[in-house]
C-alpha cells in the first residue's frame, strides 16, 4: 500500500481543484476496490458499476475525509457499504445453496478466474454479507483486524469473532462440495 502521506497530499490536491490528483488516486485503488466489490457481489458488471459509484461518492464526499485516518480504509468503507447495500437490495439473487450458486454462474463470473476461483466465489456467496466482508478484506485485500474494524465500523474483537465464524462456515461449505478434502 502506498504511503498515507502521499494519499493525503493527493486528497488535498484534489480539494484544491487538481483533477489529476484524483485520477492518480483512482488509478492507484481501482484494482483493489474493484476486486473487493467483485468478491462481495460476484457479478463483474455489477462490480464495475459499484466501483464507479464508490469513486464518484468518494469524490463528492472528499471534504469529509479525515486525514488522521487512512485514505484506503475510508475508500474501502464506501466500497463495502455499496456492495452490502447492493446485495441486500438484490437479496433474491443470493443463492440459498451451493447448487443454485453453481447454476446461477454467469459467463462473466467465469471470467473471475479458474474453476477453483469460481467455486470458491460461489461458496463465498453463500455466507452472510457481513461475514463475507471480513473474509474479503482479510484474505483478498490483506487488511489487518484493526483496518477491517475501521472499514466495517465494528470493534476489533467483533472482527476477530466474525472472521473465525466466517472461516468455519466457508470451510464447511468447501468441504461439503469436495473443494477441500
Amino acid at each position, binding site marked *: 500500500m502506498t504511503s498515507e502521506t502521499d494519499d493525503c497530499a493527493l486528497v*488535498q490536491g*484534489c*480539494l*484544491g*481543484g487538481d*483533477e489529476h490528483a*484524483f*485520477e492518480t488516486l*483512482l*488509478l492507484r485503488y*481501482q*484494482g483493489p*476496490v*474493484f*476486486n473487493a466489490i*467483485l*468478491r462481495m457481489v460476484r457479478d*463483474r458488471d455489477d462490480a*464495475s458499476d459499484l*466501483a*464507479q459509484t464508490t*469513486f*464518484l461518492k468518494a*469524490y*463528492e464526499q*472528499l*471534504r*469529509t475525509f479525515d486525514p488522521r485516518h487512512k485514505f484506503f480504509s475510508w475508500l474501502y468503507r464506501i466500497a463495502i457499504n455499496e456492495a452490502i447495500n447492493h446485495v441486500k437490495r438484490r437479496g433474491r439473487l443470493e443463492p440459498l445453496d451451493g447448487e443454485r450458486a453453481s447454476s446461477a454462474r454467469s459467463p462473466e463470473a467465469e*471470467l*473471475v*478466474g*479458474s474453476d*477453483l*476461483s469460481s467455486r*470458491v*466465489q460461489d461458496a463465498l456467496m453463500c455466507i452472510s454479507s457481513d461475514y463475507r466482508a471480513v*473474509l474479503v478484506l*482479510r*484474505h*483478498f485485500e490483506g487488511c*489487518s*483486524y484493526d483496518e477491517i474494524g475501521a472499514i466495517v465500523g465494528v470493534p476489533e474483537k467483533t472482527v*476477530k469473532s466474525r*472472521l*473465525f465464524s466466517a*472461516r468455519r462456515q*466457508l*470451510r464447511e461449505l*468447501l*468441504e461439503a462440495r469436495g*473443494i*477441500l*478434502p
Partner: protein
Amino acid sequence: MSIRPEILDLIHADIDGIATEADSIKLRDAIANDAEVRDEYRRLRGLCDALAGVEPASPPRELAPNVMRGVRARRGGVRSGYVGRARAWWPGGPQALRYAYALAAGAAIGVIAMQLVGAGSLFLPSVQERDAAASIGTAPGMCRLELSQAGIKGSATLQPSGVGAAIGLQVTAKDPVELVLRYDPAHDGDRVKVLVVRDGAAQDAGTLRIARGH
C-alpha cells in the same frame, strides 16, 4: 469441537501472521500433542490456501475513464481555485461552513426586516419627511400612498423601473408591521393594493397606481 478457545486463537493468529514467537511455540506444542488441534490447523490452512488461489481480476478498462467523466460532470462539487482552497481552509470544515451560510442567510433576513421596520435607516441616510415629499414630487410617474389611514406612520411608493414597477416602503414603527401587497395582473392592470395585517385580519390601506404614460 473441544479445542480450547485460546488454542483456536493461536491457530488463527498463526494463519494471519500475527502470532508472536511464544504463541508459535505454544501452537507447535499443541499441534504435536493433540490430533484435534492438528486437524483443525490443517483444515484452516487448506481454506486459506484455497482463498489464496483465487485469482485477482483486472478492473474493466472503461472504469477509470467513466469515473473521470463523472468527476468532470460533478466539478461543481469540489470547487477549484480560490473557492476550493477557501472551503478547504474554513475552520471546522464544511459542516461549520454550512452554519456560516445559515448565519449569513439569517443576518440578511434580519437586515431586510429591520430595513422594512426601521424606515430604511440602515442603508440610507435618514431622510426628513418633507425631503421625501419633495423628491416624490419630482420623480416622474411615481405614485405615493400615505399609510396613516391604516394607522401606520409612513408611506408606500410605486414607480416605473427598467423591467416593470418598483415598490418602495418608508415605515416607522416600534413593533413589527405586516404589509401585504396584492397585485392581480388579470384585473388590477397598473394598480397594486396595499393591505395592513393586524391580528390576522387584513385592512385595506389604499391602492398604488402608476401614472398613465409611464
